[in-house]
């Protein structure tokens, strides 16, 4: 109940600041289980994706997020677990007890769609996209029947650059591209190059001449 109310507040605030518009170019906002993979430049990234998803899809779409960040402190724990229902993974290879891919696959088996950020960390530099980590590839191998939808989030890094506390209201867009799937014979490198290209092609700065 409280979690739903807070979710509504967060979505309303995101609209107030960014007037965000979802553009569906190559996939539709309907049915089916999906893994949305997006560029990552700000903590607000998955909130924006969440905001533009129709409520029915939003309910069963879970962001994949770092446990070390979201389990720190009561408020973050409440927001991460109860409001966003995040799949929390441990980024530390040494100390973790559960494999992230197993956790994500289990969430997919439970009927959820996922939001992942294959760059692995927030991109704060000038390059549009950091090289993908291999997580998306392993997830695609584990569940090859699930559509992988590239999602480009534009402008949010200007709304709230790293280290700032006050967001600047700017118009943002979230563009959903055509889904991709992994081919049986595709190597890890080939797949990652293809996934990166599919995501980068949605960026207005790259698409414009």
């Amino acid at each position, binding site marked *: 109940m409280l979690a739903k109310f807070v979710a509504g507040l967060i979505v309303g605030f995101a609209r107030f600041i960014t007037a965000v518009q979802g553009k569906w170019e190559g996939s539709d906002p309907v049915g089916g289980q999906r893994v949305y993979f997006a560029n990552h430049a700000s903590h607000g990234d998955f909130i924006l994706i969440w905001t533009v998803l129709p409520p029915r899809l939003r309910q069963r779409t879970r962001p994949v997020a770092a446990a070390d960040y979201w389990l720190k402190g009561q408020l973050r724990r409440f927001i991460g677990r109860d409001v966003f229902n995040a799949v929390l993974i441990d980024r530390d290879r040494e100390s973790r007890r559960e494999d992230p891919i197993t956790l994500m696959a289990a969430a997919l088996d439970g009927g959820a769609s996922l939001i992942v950020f294959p760059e692995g960390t927030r991109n704060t530099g000038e390059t549009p996209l950091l090289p993908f980590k291999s997580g998306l590839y392993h997830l695609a191998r584990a569940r090859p029947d699930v559509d992988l939808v590239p999602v480009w989030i534009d402008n949010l890094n200007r709304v709230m650059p790293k280290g700032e506390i006050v967001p*600047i209201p700017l118009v943002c867009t979230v563009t959903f591209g055509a889904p991709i799937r992994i081919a049986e014979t595709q190597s890890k490198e080939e797949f990652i190059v293809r996934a990166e290209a599919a995501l980068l092609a949605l960026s207005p700065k790259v698409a414009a001449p």
Partner: protein
Amino acid sequence: MSAPHPDLLTLLAGFAAILVAASMIGYVLQSRLSPDGSNTAIENLNDRIRAWWVMVALMGLALMGGRTGVTLLFACCSFAALREFVTLTSTRRADHWALAGAFFAVLPIQYYLIWISWYGLYSIFIPVYAFLMMPIIAVLRGDTDNYLVRIAEVQWALMICVFCASHVPALMSLDIPGYEGKNVLLIAFLVIVVQISDVLQYVWGKLLGRTRIAPTLSPSKTVEGFVGGALSATLIGAGLAWMTPFTPPQAAFLSLVIVMMGFFGGLVMSAIKRDRGVKDWGHLIAGHGGFIDRLDSVVFSAPIFFHLVRYWWSVT
């Protein structure tokens, strides 16, 4: 808050009637010519009519709310317009606090000053105080790349989206002998003349438009559309003299000024869009683009209209 003026109710009823007629025409056109939604011109027309319903309803509510209602409505419009404008600027991280100040300090303060009718401060707050303080805040971060361009863009954004737009509710603070309690109708007059002129220029342009007036700026604007729209809007403005403190010739003159400023305002804002390589300022109003696309002509005419009326008619 007192009861809305009967003239205002007459006016709103008139607009409701026009919109009902427009919606019926749109419905008939759609069911005859575009039953499957394939005719984009008709779909766009219907989108526009629907957006007009929302705009007239909001404007009507604001006008009935008097000074507070109009000030709130235009503060919200300024916020949305500033959000669209700043999106297209080349501001950087170093401008973060200057921009936060523009949205969360300058904008509310300007509209508060309007609300309390402090003419001496609201007429210089942005051109003097914000103009000097914003570059100071930005310079403290030490980033000099494109510095002049960045601060000029933010200042321009504030002047257009906040300062100029706030002159619409500022009309509430004018004190015109014999016109007490009717200032909302002055706002209605300004907004109606501007918007009717936009619509009529579009209609005349569609009917007779041949010679393009500014091909590099706005391919849809024609000489025929401009002249026809400006003249008919001036006539309509003269016909609205009953709700203003003006005589019909005075109302015609002021309408002409409003129409000219609105037209050239539209051209200026088109030039900025071209410069930035976008077609519309935003996507919030279906069929119209962004807030600035709908506000550009009001923004340019409001300060001039305000000062003309203040100089010749107001005692404050």
